[in-house]
């Protein structure tokens, strides 16, 4: 097992090198100049411009800039945001919990709804339920996130007025941030003591719409995946054995079939996690969610090179680590992998 972990961690190195080079070059290929943007549209004094450029290290050739970046990165310094003047690392960790919380809720929503849908469709194969659920999941899969998010806001927040439009928590509440996960922080004893259960409920109501918007495509993928995986498993010999033992069909499906059907689904959840972070950029922008997606979009607009480089590197690392975790879960679910 230790060998397995080490191998996965070693795999991380070439991935990160590749990603750092790509993000480094790509952002510099985009037209636009951070110094120009900082000094204002009307243009600036060439002397001030050169001074500024030198201060940011942008006067050096690209490869030298990269070497400096890597050297600093090794000592744990990913640079300072040109816009906010705060370190990229602290900015990232201030925002990442928000994205992770939203992503986990979206995945949970997708799994809790999608897997039972898939099971139902498989058991009632070629029935009305099957066609309805699979047709519905195809619609869900085809829905662009930005459009779907806006529709949700228009209906639930504007028409019905039952959910907030945007943000993470109502500004009425003053919650002390400890973990960065609002669902946890609002339930901490000291916050509960000072503010009551209100902040938690507010957080929850703020989470619902973005989690649905973000989780709809994963839900569709999981429902379809569960259906086909379940159908395959239900035809296996060991299901016949379970029937021959006298097990009731409900138990056969819930225990014998589902356990086997989950193996490919776990893999899919791992892959979905990567796309969740990508989906975060759209969802967070629509819902003004203070996570890394929104942060990255803003920094791209400002050509904030250090933030883009560092942020992309962080996200890549997180995705690899999450996939490592999924591999572990996979080994738990599938005895053959142990």
């Amino acid at each position, binding site marked *: 097992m230790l060998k397995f972990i080490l191998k996965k961690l070693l795999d991380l190195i070439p991935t990160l090198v590749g990603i750092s080079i790509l993000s480094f070059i790509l952002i510099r290929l985009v037209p636009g100049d951070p110094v120009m943007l900082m000094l204002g549209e009307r243009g600036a004094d060439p002397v001030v411009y050169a001074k500024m450029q030198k201060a940011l290290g942008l006067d050096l050739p690209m490869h030298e800039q990269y070497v400096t970046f890597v050297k600093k990165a090794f000592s744990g310094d990913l640079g300072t945001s040109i816009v906010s003047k705060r370190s990229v690392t602290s900015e990232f960790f201030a925002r990442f919990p928000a994205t992770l919380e939203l992503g986990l809720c979206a995945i949970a929503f997708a799994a809790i709804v999608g897997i039972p849908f898939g099971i139902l469709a498989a058991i009632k194969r070629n029935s009305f339920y099957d066609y309805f659920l699979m047709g519905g999941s195809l619609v869900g899969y085809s829905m662009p996130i930005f459009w779907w998010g806006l529709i949700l806001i228009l209906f639930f927040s504007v028409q019905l007025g039952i959910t907030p439009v945007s943000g993470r928590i109502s500004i009425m509440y003053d919650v002390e941030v400890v973990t960065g996960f609002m669902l946890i922080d609002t339930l901490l004893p000291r916050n509960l003591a000072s503010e009551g259960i209100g902040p938690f409920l507010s957080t929850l109501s703020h989470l619902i719409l973005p989690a649905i918007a973000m989780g709809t495509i994963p839900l569709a993928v999981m429902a379809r995946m569960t259906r086909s995986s379940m159908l395959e498993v239900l035809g*296996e*010999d*060991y299901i*016949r*054995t*379970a*029937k*021959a*033992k*006298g*097990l*009731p*069909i409900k138990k056969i499906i819930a225990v*014998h079939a589902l*356990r*086997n059907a989950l*193996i490919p689904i776990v893999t899919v959840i791992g892959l979905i996690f990567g796309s969740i972070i990508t989906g975060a950029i759209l969802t967070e922008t629509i819902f003004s969610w203070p996570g890394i997606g929104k942060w990255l979009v803003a920094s791209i607009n400002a050509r904030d090179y250090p933030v883009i480089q560092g942020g992309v590197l962080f996200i890549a690392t997180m995705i690899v680590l999450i996939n490592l975790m999924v591999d572990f879960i996979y080994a738990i*679910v*599938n*005895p*053959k992998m142990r």
Partner: protein
Amino acid sequence: MLLDVKNLNLKFQTSKGVIHAIRDLSFNIKQGETLGIVGESGCGKSITNLALMGLLPDTADLTADKLEFEGSDLLSLKEKQWQKIRGADIAMIFQDPMTALNPCFTVGYQIEETLELHRKDLSKEERKEFVFELLDQVGIPAPRERAKSYAHELSGGMSQRVMIAQAIACNPKLLIADEPTTALDVTIQDQILKLLKDIQAKNNMAMILVTHDLGVVSENADRIQVMYAGEVIESGTSEEVIHSPKHPYTRGLLDSLPGNGDTSFRAPLSSISGMVPDLRFRPSGCQFNPRCFKSKEECSSSRPMLNQEDHQVSCFFPLSEG
């Protein structure tokens, strides 16, 4: 009579027409007896077993004059009542033990599950102990460690032993063994058959041994029933069927075994020409007549029925002794 079947018919409605899979099947088994069912692939052996377990697919249309187990009717059973019988009174083992065990659970758990269902009198600890006992009984060394194994960690022979342990866990009165040795190495086949025989003698259990291997049934079955195209065409004691077959089909099967028929060195094995008929388009008269070397006009015009002697055969021109 433990199991009594009279005129069982099984039909499947498919988009391509009605398949009459089993036609007028009648047989019975006494306690402690072994019935060998022999036939080519697709002759209705396995589907008969599923019918006896109440595991037919929904599309099946099953009718019978009589289908009784220990004197009680099986035809009218509801799914819930079937679940009480399956695994407890009638148990089954399958052809491929490697795929018949669930890969995600330990074999100990899978055996225990059967006990949990049917032996409510046992406590959790007693069940666990009983699992070890069963594994020991089927000849698995170090049962306490093996109980924690997964199917992929066991060999084919070991897996089949586990399947047997699971099947006999609740002392069934009837064990259906559907080609129990077909997927195993020849060296293991004998061990498994011997194990089944021992358990059978000890528990006074009746057994249906389904196989296409006449060698296996001749050694292990008390009676043999030969099936062709969903019908019984010959039935008698092993002695009678193997040594003086009356039906040309049985004769053909026996001749196709190595060492039977023309035994001169390097003579090609004899085979029965033709194919089992498509059950949607059954031939008229005797089902075997298109392939039969003794076929006459009568064979294709009217259908022979099993005669009512001890050694039953459904043929207008049965082979004479020897």
